[in-house]
């Protein structure tokens, strides 16, 4: 008995020893940050039914991401992001076997569907010399993976062993495989020999060739327009002549059928017209789909006896139509999905009985505009009463996908457009008119040079805020019905929001504090505006128009019919509602833009088109009489950087004069990276104090531009850096790095430039810091002019980067009092906050008269990155692309937003929270202590008076 009690106590003691260990205080997790994890638009999908209690869906996306989501809620169970440069060709799934084939069949991997762990990987790097035009894989009943590419046929066991490897190109005299059909252990392969213009077919049983033959191809033969129907006939569609060509494998020539023979009506084959076969069809029935157009499709049947074709069923709709099928024992159900953007209808067609099943028909209302359905994957099952039930996962044009139940309900929707962001920007929202006043007063107080006036305005702004909150509470009490809870709860008086424009044409506004989605829009015709240097980007500007602000998004149109120029979207930034009186399409393409400001507020945008003509947006804005604009454009293709000057002609037109040019030798150098300094940034200090107490003045040119070019000579890779003045075109500094490449856009702030190179010789990444100084006397003390004659002193220092840098940025605060940190984003999704002072160049001994050299904060050649500097702890950002920074309300903090496939937002405090009380600040304790002191002082004073009186009496 005693022994068991001892054991019990020991066990309790051991359990007590196990405590959670976190990298930051547990209660702080998610308090100042939010994280959105995405998959990407759906490409392949499978219903994982192995977990009876927790059913899942396995998704493979267009962005080479493999994931498992719960069937109940759509939440992520696991996610594996595969290499972006190795797109997933196909995914195979059966019971507990999940196989992915990537990179044109070069990489085959098996995954554990439950945990997402990689079980094995077979890579045949270097085996494939050319890109394979055809990839097909099959997991047969004997659990063998059959992988067919244009030139290779491979058999893998599910254990990860390569069983058979056939080089078809060698064996078949240059023929290229283009079709495969598998039924149990037998395979039929179709190969096309372009030399002899013939189709070779091979029949194999257990990987051994049984039979083969040759069929003479017809004139307009295209491999991608052919099908292998029922393991014995080839059906091809000739789009040019609108004819079907049919041949059984035993025949040597094709038989021709015109589409008119099918009584389809007037034939108008479009680009999207094609024939497709379903796996379920090919096993049991010689039927296939014929897609005539987006809203007219057919199921056709091939009669083996005479190779004739008949229509089994035609499907047509006024709206978009999608056909897909599933098999349940002996039932093949063909689903037809039609959508008019507001309603989604599903009809089920029984292929055996050749009749619709009315009981399975559903219509459901779509509560948002998602475009047409793109793909759908059904899952058929028997319900309790042996009646057929189904679930469908439908993906839409806007990148979202939803689970539709047979009950006519959408269980969940995953919005995946955010996985591919083209442009993002922080904006400041003001909800009410009072708040607009508050924000403007706050802005005035921030920019005021007089401290007394600034203090007064700050107090005044706080008074407006308090008044607004009281009115707000009053409104909730008196008129709760008209109070929009979601919006007002989400929006504080002055609130920062993030605007995202995605590649699929979706625009999101997300509250940067909480991560709450405020509104979103789907604009199918909007894509990124084509930039010549970087990937697609859009122009996002918040302009102050009367009476309310307007959010302007300018992007490229993907449909010339809709807009042959620039798509313009002007919305209310609070609600996402379109604002009237603004054009939706601009007739010109934009090559550069400049914001026009009045009293520190953006009031209009000057847009430079490809003909060097300035357009003002909105066109209702009247220009100041003597407006002058300096702009420059960079063209990566021609290597030309050109400066422009625009001055008003007296009316609303501009006179254009090209001012300067910088021309790269196009065949030797390629412009790869380009960065511009934020001219509105707050300066931390105008000078650097040296150890001998002298001052070195910073070169604070607000028009700095950095170009990074690379040598085109593969044998002599080289990076060239040019620092230019964007107004005068003056080349301020230039240097080169031999045996190097550069992949990360440089950052510019105050008087320094930081950039990254990949040292190919030493096989490492390096971080270089350049600092520019005017010298020990200041030249541009009051106002800056680019025409001043200044000799710039450049100090530099290089460091080894302990990681694979993807992107970087610099923190920015309201007034620039807080020292700057450099935020480095690495390939593993971590964000490091590095104090800029750690990477400052050493001051040369000649500049400082101090007997000892200037001490360096980082004496090692490697950047000191400790894991305490990771600002996103374990919430890594997959395929990190860019980091945005915006000042927060408090001077010590700034908002940091990083995005790739995921989005992560947090607050960074480069100098800790010096102007903020700690979260666990003991208000009660302080008040209690003060109260106790007060009581003690009162009691003490009365006692002392009493004692003094007594002493006097004595």
């Amino acid at each position: 008995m005693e022994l068991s009690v001892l054991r019990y106590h020991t066990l309790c003691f051991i359990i007590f020893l196990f405590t959670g260990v976190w990298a930051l205080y547990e209660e702080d997790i998610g308090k100042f940050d939010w994280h959105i994890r995405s998959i990407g638009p759906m490409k392949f999908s499978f219903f994982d039914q192995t977990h009876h209690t927790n059913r899942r869906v396995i998704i493979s996306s267009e962005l080479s991401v493999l994931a498992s989501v719960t069937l109940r809620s759509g939440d992520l169970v696991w996610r594996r992001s595969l290499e972006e440069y190795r797109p997933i060709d196909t995914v195979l799934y059966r019971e507990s076997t999940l196989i992915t084939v990537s990179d044109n069949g070069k990489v085959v991997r098996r995954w554990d569907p439950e945990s997402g762990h990689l079980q094995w990987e077979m890579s045949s790097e270097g085996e494939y010399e050319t890109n394979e035009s055809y990839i097909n894989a099959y997991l047969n009943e004997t659990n063998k993976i059959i992988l067919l590419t244009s030139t290779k046929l491979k058999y893998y066991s599910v254990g990860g062993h390569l069983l058979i490897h056939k080089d078809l190109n060698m064996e078949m005299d240059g023929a290229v495989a283009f079709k495969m059909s598998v039924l149990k252990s037998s395979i039929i392969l179709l190969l096309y020999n372009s030399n002899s213009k013939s189709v070779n077919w091979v029949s194999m049983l257990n990987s051994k060739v049984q039979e083969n033959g040759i069929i003479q191809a017809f004139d307009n033969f295209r491999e991608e327009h052919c099908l292998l129907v029922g393991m014995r006939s080839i059906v091809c569609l000739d789009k040019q002549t609108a004819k079907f060509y049919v041949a059984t494998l035993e025949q040597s020539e094709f038989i021709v059928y015109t589409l008119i023979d099918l009584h389809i009506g007037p034939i108008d084959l479009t680009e999207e017209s094609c024939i497709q076969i379903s796996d379920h069809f090919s096993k049991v029935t010689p039927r296939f789909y014929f897609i005539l157009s987006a809203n007219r499709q057919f199921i056709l049947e091939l009669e083996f006896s005479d190779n004739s074709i008949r229509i089994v069923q035609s499907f047509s709709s006024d709206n978009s139509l999608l056909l897909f099928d599933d098999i349940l024992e002996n039932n093949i159900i063909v689903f037809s999905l039609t959508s008019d953007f507001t309603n989604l209808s599903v009809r089920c067609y029984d292929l055996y009985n050749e009749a619709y099943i009315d009981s399975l028909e559903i219509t459901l209302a779509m509560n948002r505009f998602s475009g047409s359905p793109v793909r759908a994957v059904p899952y058929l099952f028997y319900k309790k009463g042996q009646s057929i039930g189904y679930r469908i996962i439908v993906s839409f044009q806007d990148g979202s996908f939803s689970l539709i139940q047979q009950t006519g309900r959408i269980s969940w929707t995953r919005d995946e457009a955010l996985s591919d962001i083209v442009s993002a920007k922080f904006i400041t929202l003001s909800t009410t008119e009072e708040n607009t006043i508050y924000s403007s007063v706050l802005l005035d107080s921030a920019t005021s040079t007089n401290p007394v006036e600034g203090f007064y305005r700050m107090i005044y702004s706080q008074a407006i805020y308090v008044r607004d909150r009281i009115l707000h509470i009053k409104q909730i009490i008196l008129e709760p019905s008209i109070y929009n809870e979601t919006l007002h709860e989400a929006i504080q008086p002055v609130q920062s929001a993030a605007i995202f424009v995605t590649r699929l044409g979706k625009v999101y506004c997300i509250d940067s504090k909480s991560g709450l989605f405020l509104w979103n829009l789907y604009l199918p015709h909007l894509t990124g505006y084509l930039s010549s240097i970087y990937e697609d980007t859009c122009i996002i500007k918040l302009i102050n128009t009367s009476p309310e602000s307007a959010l302007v998004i300018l992007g490229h149109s993907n449909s010339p019919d809709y807009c042959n120029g620039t798509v313009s979207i002007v919305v209310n930034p609070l609600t996402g509602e379109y604002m009237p009186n603004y054009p939706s399409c601009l007739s010109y393409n934009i090559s550069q833009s400049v914001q026009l400001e009045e009293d520190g507020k953006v009031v209009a945008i000057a847009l430079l088109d490809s003909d060097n003509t300035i357009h003002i947006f909105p066109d209702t804005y009247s220009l100041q009489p003597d407006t002058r604009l300096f702009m420059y454009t960079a063209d990566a293709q021609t290597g030309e950087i050109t400066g422009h000057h625009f001055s008003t002609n007296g009316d609303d037109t501009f006179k254009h004069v090209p001012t300067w040019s910088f021309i790269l030798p196009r065949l030797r150098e390629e412009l790869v990276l380009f960065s511009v300094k934020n001219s509105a940034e707050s300066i931390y200090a105008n000078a650097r104090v040296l150890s001998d107490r002298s001052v070195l003045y910073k070169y604070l040119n607000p028009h700095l531009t950095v170009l990074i070019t690379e040598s085109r000579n593969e044998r002599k890779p080289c990076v060239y850096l040019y620092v230019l003045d964007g107004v005068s075109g003056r080349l301020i500094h230039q240097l080169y790095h031999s045996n190097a490449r550069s992949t990360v856009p440089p950052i510019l702030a105050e008087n320094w430039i930081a950039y990254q190179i990949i040292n190919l010789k030493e096989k490492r990444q390096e971080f270089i810091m350049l600092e520019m100084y005017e010298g020990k006397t200041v030249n541009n003390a009051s106002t800056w002019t680019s025409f001043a004659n200044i000799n710039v002193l450049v100090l530099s220092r290089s460091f080894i980067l302990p990681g694979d840098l993807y992107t970087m940025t610099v923190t920015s605060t309201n007034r620039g009092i807080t020292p700057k940190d450099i935020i480095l984003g690495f390939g593993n999704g971590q964000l490091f906050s590095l104090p800029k002072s750690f990477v400052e160049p050493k001051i040369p001994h000649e500049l400082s008269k101090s007997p000892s050299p200037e001490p360096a904060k980082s004496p090692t050649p490697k950047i000191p990155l400790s894991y305490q500097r990771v600002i996103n702890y374990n919430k890594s950002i997959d395929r990190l692309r860019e980091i945005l920074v915006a000042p927060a309300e408090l001077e010590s903090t700034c908002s940091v937003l990083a995005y790739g496939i995921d989005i992560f937002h947090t607050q960074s405090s480069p100098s800790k929270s010096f102007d903020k009380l700690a979260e666990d600040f003991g208000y009660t304790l302080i008040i209690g202590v003060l109260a106790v002191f007060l009581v003690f002082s009162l009691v003490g004073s009365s006692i002392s008076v009493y004692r003094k009186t007594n002493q006097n009496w004595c």
Partner: protein
Amino acid sequence: MRYILFLLSISLYVYTYYCYTLEISHSCDGVTWESRGVVSIKTEKSLSGNFSQTPISSRLLSCLWLKAQTDEFYHVRAPVTFSEKESPSETAQFVHGFTKSRHLFCSDLYDSLTIYTDSKGGVLSLFSESKRGCVTGEEWSRGAKSQIKEKLSTSLHLVHAHQHPGPEPPVEEFLKEHIVEKEKKERGEDKSFFQKYWQYLLIGFVVYTLMGVLVKAPSEEGGESH
């Protein structure tokens, strides 16, 4: 004779390879251009060259004066010297530079012309800068006297844009320092006070203890005798 001709042709080839000329043009509006002179550039070891200028025309000077009234610009240009294949496009046959006309007059028509070239001598950029800007209105009005000059005074700067190698991480310096520190440690220079002088301290301690014992012993003897 053949030998001399061969040598002459070689030297001519070398001369033309390493020397070339640029005709600089200038304008007051960026539309009508006039020749400003010819720059001869030698690219042998370091860039060098000279600039023979032609007098500025009265038309251009008066035009510049008018432009200076409205604070507009003085433009210069030089032809692109890349090979035909490398010439980016038809529109970019020249590289341009500019400065304020007003500044030019304020500096008595004295400017500096900087030509940036790449490693093969191709002109990347041209930068014109007046020697001194007009900071105040007085300086500007004083600049009016410059109109009487016939020629621009110019200082020519030829800059090789690819001559400064970027910094490298100071790995060798760090390793040297590291090795020196290691050697110091090995030599014992970096030892602490106790590590260095423990022998003397030990001797001192032993002497002190012995002295204590020796002093105590006679006193005890004395005690006994007493």
